[in-house]
């Protein structure tokens, strides 16, 4: 049986559908109109996969573990791993960001609230779309923050044991992190007296900067270190962000350079969320 070519009526319907799609696309890209529905779906899939895992895999794992004599050792090992991640993050803050602790009142308040001597909340990565991270411009990560009942983390800095990863842009049951490499992310960074607004490149582990020689006459060098400036009120200052990896002159006066980040989001499954500055 042969298929009939589209009639003028069905052609009009196709045209209508494509136009409607284009309109929806415009709304989503420019106004993020469907962000809430998408986040709801993501939360649902993460929660359901977590629940399914808890119902199906975890009991099997448990049976498997109790069948072995070393089950206690395994548990202890897990706890130690978590403590180790904890201490990595604490050491990172203490060793690289001494200026962050200038405000004694903020430290005291934090210590009183959390009854611990670390100004961060431990979080576990719940979902990370590595496909999008490696191929596309949108670099997001979803985490579950521990002990975060009454705290709003939107705008909080997220770190791992290597450095700054990004900031939280959505915080419900699952928090969403905008990574430094996302193209919509901009971060003020500094090197000596040189300042630059670094944009995410959309490439894994790379952010980019543009500057004019007329404003910034000093040359930039491969391997030069860049630090967070603390401007913008999101990130703590003087934390090493990365090293210059490539420099390209776009014209006689303008220079474009890439910075390789020191912090890799794929490194650890546990990360730290600082309370807002």
């Amino acid at each position, binding site marked *: 049986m042969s298929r009939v070519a589209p009639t003028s009526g069905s052609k009009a319907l*196709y045209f209508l559908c494509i136009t409607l799609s284009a309109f929806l696309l415009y*709304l989503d890209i420019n106004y993020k109109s469907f962000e809430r529905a998408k986040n709801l779906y993501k939360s649902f899939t993460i929660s359901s996969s977590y629940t399914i895992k808890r119902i199906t895999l975890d009991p099997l794992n448990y049976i498997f573990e109790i069948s072995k004599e070393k089950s206690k050792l395994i548990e202890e090992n897990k706890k130690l791993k978590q403590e180790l991640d904890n201490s990595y993050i604490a050491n990172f803050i203490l060793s690289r960001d001494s200026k962050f602790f200038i405000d004694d009142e903020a430290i005291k308040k934090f210590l009183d609230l959390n009854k611990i001597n670390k100004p961060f909340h431990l979080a576990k990565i719940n979902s990370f779309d590595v496909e999008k991270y490696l*191929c596309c411009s949108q670099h997001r990560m979803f985490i579950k923050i521990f002990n975060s009942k009454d705290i709003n983390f939107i705008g909080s800095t997220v770190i791992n044991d290597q450095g700054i990863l990004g900031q939280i842009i959505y915080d419900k049951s699952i928090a969403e992190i905008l990574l430094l490499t996302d193209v919509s992310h901009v971060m003020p960074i500094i090197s000596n007296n040189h300042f630059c607004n670094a944009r995410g490149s959309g490439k894994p582990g790379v952010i980019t900067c543009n500057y004019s020689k007329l404003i910034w006459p000093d040359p930039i060098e491969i391997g030069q270190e860049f630090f967070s400036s603390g401007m913008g009120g999101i990130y703590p200052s003087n934390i090493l962000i990365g090293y210059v990896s490539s420099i390209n002159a776009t014209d006689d006066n303008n220079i474009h350079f890439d910075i390789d980040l020191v912090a890799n989001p794929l490194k650890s499954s546990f990360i730290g969320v600082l309370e807002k500055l």
Partner: protein
Amino acid sequence: MNNIGYIKLLVIIFIANILESFLAPILIKAYINIPITFLIFSFAIYKSRFNTNALYAFLFGLYVDFISSSPIGLNAALFSMMAYAVNSYSNTFKLFSFIQICMFFSGSATFYIGFSHLFINLENFSYLILFISLIFNTFLFLIISMLRFYFPSLKIK
């Protein structure tokens, strides 16, 4: 040639989307991109005995947009375009050899990759990915279409 049911196709596309999300990070290292969900939908409407309704393609595209976290409307537009192209040339395809059909599908897949990258990856748009994906997809489809010659068919002709 059989029409595939809506529910069946929804489930297949859902599984294909999960498979794609697992394969894509590995393949992208070799500059290869295979839009599995798009290809499965295209193949379903190509194999269908009847013309696909525009709304059918549109709604399936929206469904893929929703489950794949791509911008809403992107797959809806591309699925509608593909359905229109397949319906328009459904009789012409009968004159084509399987090599030409494979080239049509790999060309469509490349168009899909290019078009979607214009929206989700404009900053790092790569012609290398398009070119390598075109070649890889063409050979992949040729191999898949040639498999039927090497495996026994259970159909009574």
